[in-house]
């Protein structure tokens, strides 16, 4: 068993990463977001997470002088990869990868909805936005992580452990079953280091049993 303080530090770290990824996969980046990333330094690469982070940081830095055009490029790439109108190569919904029908809003989506409900949560735009969009799943993880930290810090260890378990289950049982495939799709479909980098981080998280 890990020392509790070590675990909290680990959770804090993961919360940042989930938040970063959530922003990248939910919507086109905002300028402020890119500026923040520019402040991060490159580090030696030990694994896919480092590699992914470095790719993102390097590409954002290299576009420093043309940030507005770069934002435009990224929004086009975001649309091409995840939205359309032409068939997006990296469909961002779990059900696409896990249902036989390859449709969205399948039973897989409803199972995800149930997991949110177990944590007392629901999608804001219920029945319109599929619950298993990667951005929502990442937000769920971020939320659970944050809550877990909070409970630990307030000494509510039993509740904290329950949420921690829930988080582990969601990550290992659900996300691990589709995220690698989604990430591969992104990696093979884009020349853009920003999204490629984010996909490496996703893969790294799953492969490492998180970190």
């Amino acid at each position, binding site marked *: 068993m890990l020392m509790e303080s070590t675990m909290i530090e680990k959770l804090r770290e993961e919360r*940042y990463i989930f938040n970063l990824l959530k922003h990248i996969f939910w919507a086109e980046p905002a300028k402020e977001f890119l500026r923040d990333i520019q402040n991060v330094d490159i580090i030696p690469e030990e694994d896919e997470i480092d590699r992914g982070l470095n790719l993102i940081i390097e590409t954002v830095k290299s576009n420093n002088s043309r940030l507005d055009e770069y934002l435009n490029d990224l929004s086009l790439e975001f649309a091409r990869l995840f939205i359309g109108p032409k068939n997006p190569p990296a469909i961002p919904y779990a059900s696409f990868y896990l249902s036989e029908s390859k449709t969205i809003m399948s039973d897989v989506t409803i199972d995800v909805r149930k997991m949110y409900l177990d944590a007392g949560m629901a999608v804001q735009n219920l029945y319109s936005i599929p619950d298993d969009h990667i951005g929502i799943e990442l937000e769920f993880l971020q939320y659970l992580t944050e809550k877990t930290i909070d409970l630990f810090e307030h000494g509510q260890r039993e509740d904290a452990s329950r949420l921690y378990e829930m988080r582990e289950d969601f990550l290992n049982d659900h996300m691990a079953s589709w995220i690698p495939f989604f990430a591969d799709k992104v990696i093979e479909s884009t020349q853009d280091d920003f999204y490629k980098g984010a996909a490496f981080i996703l893969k790294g998280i799953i492969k490492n049993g998180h970190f």
Partner: protein
Amino acid sequence: MQVSRRVFLRYAAALGGVAALNKSGLMTLKNLSPSEAEAMQTSMGKYEVKYTADAMCPAECGMEMWIKDGKIAKIYGNKAVPMNDGIACAKGASGQQLVYSPYRLKYPMIRVGERGSGKFKRVTWDEAIDHIGKKLADIKKKYGAESAIMDCGDVTDRDHYYRLFFAYGTPNCTEHGSICDTPRRHGPKLMVGGKRWEPDIMRPQLVRQPDGSLKKDYTYKSKLIVYNGWNPFVATRIFYESRGTVGAKVENGCKVVVIDPSYSNTATAADMWLAPRAGTDGDLFGAMLRYILENDNQNDPNKKYINWSFKKYSTGWEDFDAAFKSWWGKKDPINGLSYFSLDWAADRTGLSKKQIEDLAHLFGITKPAALVWGMQSPGHHYNGYCASIIGVALNVITGNFDIPGGVIDTELVKSDKGGSATGKQFKSKKVKRMIDGKEVEGEVEHFHMDLFGSKYPAAWDDAVADYPNAFMEGVDVRYGPFRGYHYPIKAYILRTGNSILTGSAPYKWKDAILAKDASGNYKLELYVFIDSLNLESALYADVILPEASYAERQSLSDIYPSHQVIYNRDAVIKPLHESKKPTEIMNMLARKLHELGDSDIKGSDFWEKYKTEEDFVNEMLAPAPGRVNVGTPLPYPQYPEGYKLIGTPESLEKGEVTVDDRNKVVKGKPVTVEWLRNNHGVAIWPMSWYRYKKHNADEPNKAFPNTSTKLIEFKFDWADGGKRYGGYKSYNEKIEKAGGEVPLGLREIGFSKFPSTFFWFETKWNPYTNPEYKKYAKDYPFQLICGRVHHAMSGTQMIPWLGEIKTEGTWQPMNNEFEAEVPEAMPMGDEPMKAMKMKFKANTYAVGTIWMNTDDAKKAGIKNGDLVVVENPLGKSTKGKVFASGGIRPGIIKIGFATGGRFSEGLGPAYKTKDYTPSHNDLVDPDVLSPIMGFPGYADMIVKVKKV
């Protein structure tokens, strides 16, 4: 688990900023209160049954959808709807595949690259509406509102858009019906004020019994159905016809004849298959009519073809008869034979004299019978009008019109809907324009590009195919008050249509949409695409708006029944992603135009009036059923004959009505969405037949059909007692008022005005009937025809398990090996993704093919599956693989409509096969636009075939 602290240590500070973006808390999720969570827990997993209308295909069957957890869990046919009587076909049952397709249009998008480059970025609805609104406001200011075309593509749920654009000030609102089967419905429209004639085989029918009760009647009465170029087993627009044809055969010994150059699926159920040359439908009908007129003998039971009582219910037969017979004395330059004789028809159709004679006799002697012609015959030929008119005459004089088991004009008897919601009233708004230095006043309607334009002023249903010309050259108004006015077309709003691929030759559409002016700007300044699906036409748009799918929006069925039936298209689930319902799109755009200063658009006509889509649909339902109380048995014996009926079946039955004797209206409680929901989604009023005569006397009731005289009209423009009558009257008056200026279409066929009774002219690109094209026969030995593959239309090519199924000779398993992501049952295991990308071996997946006769193929050294180029005399060509079979007349080539060359990725496997699947439309002559209504001659072409 070892914790690595590197990320935390090195990035925490910087990423803290990122995290700070999230100050407002959750972006996508929300915390539920304990009671909310409990309510959700309790409701999950429960079914709710809703009734709706399909839109996977134009049959629009009644559906029963089971909703669980906010999603469609099961789809069944709605047993209460007689259109499909509880049946859901494979296509209807595949609804979830489309609604929940990951490739749907999800967000509003604005084009970033050049038109056609396919580069778009996501924008908010506000941004998209702002962009469109500003462009429309600018176009209206610079060129006039008439410069916008609202093309609703599909007829389904179009009224919101029509309303908005009529109010904006353009009369140029249309839908695909204008290019679909226009000549097919010309005869009925001209002669009875209707549209589509179908056999009386919708079952069940709700029929008034002698004891006053109403009974669902399943008995078939038909003894003969002749389908000419109509293939209900595949191209189902009228779903009951497939099961009704079989039902009438099996249960009533009905004979079925199919006339089609190809052995269609419907032909497989026929007792007789006749395969004439393409484009000779009118020839065959003409010969049948001549045979019946020459051989009718009222004293011989075996020759008693004509039921002369039709003369009581019609007018103008003598004129029609004389005009028709006047051709008998003429010799056809193509063969030197007397028009409409058996010899003449045999020479032109390629059928034997005996076959034609037998058919004419069979149709004349068998009662009740129905002669029906479809899209793939008169509907696709330049001269289809003639066939359609003779077809009406044949059914009427043999006494088969509107009798039990006969033929029914479905337009005349379907429930009325739309009412003031359609916004037609806005078209009478007065507007002014300067013409030759003078200010002229007219109405919005008078700008109509077809009705008042220089080409097809009798284009009752508009002419979409001519749009590329309009984009390039603008519109010359030559009739009505704005005569002499010219305006450009600057905005094109396309909704649920794919005109670039299907509205005549795609290359012409692309050229027109990409055309730029001298300053390098697109001549067409605004092109908006609205749909749930990403079709080829979307790739060229400036703005894409995702519309709620058919399961997510509220409206009404649009069907062709044998009596008044209307049902709800209920919004059974919430719109997915950020798609919006037509009511919302209409209101948003209306509000934006209003904000931008458009005083023609008022809140009281839009967003204040229609707060929900249900408000809109209730207004559409207000006139229902809106048909007169006529026929035998009289639908409502308790009300006066000939009075218009309005209100729910329930209120009319119970007598909860007011009777307005002055206006001859019986008004019960209005049909509403709520009423429909409480009644299995459907309202059904009683069936009757002989609706053109009094129920208790052999005389006209003067309430039906819907012509100028309320009689069946065999003449089209005549004066009597100082008054003028007939279906062509108003068009000829336009020409007369314009100093006799002849519209382009009529000039092409040498007419100076619309004819006053029977007329005849030849089709184009037919070397066997039109001497002008005889010279091409040797080099271009094949006639090219097309037909629909029901489950391979745009919307359903997205559903591979439908597309995979082969159909006739135009959709066969002749694929090259390809990889595609398709839904297939996957082996369970650790890596469920491995089976996702399927490799389809050659010849295992149905694709668009070129259907030709085995002997023709053999002569040309072509084997089944060979890749060939099909080329027309205009130098245009398409490529595809040959499916050779005996099931097609020699000298004919058939290609499915829009089955090949599909260049939108959204179409899944169809896209993968685009390089070796044929596009029929690439071979259509874009300048062959039929002379009266301007629709394209889809099946008027000749080709040669070369092996690649």
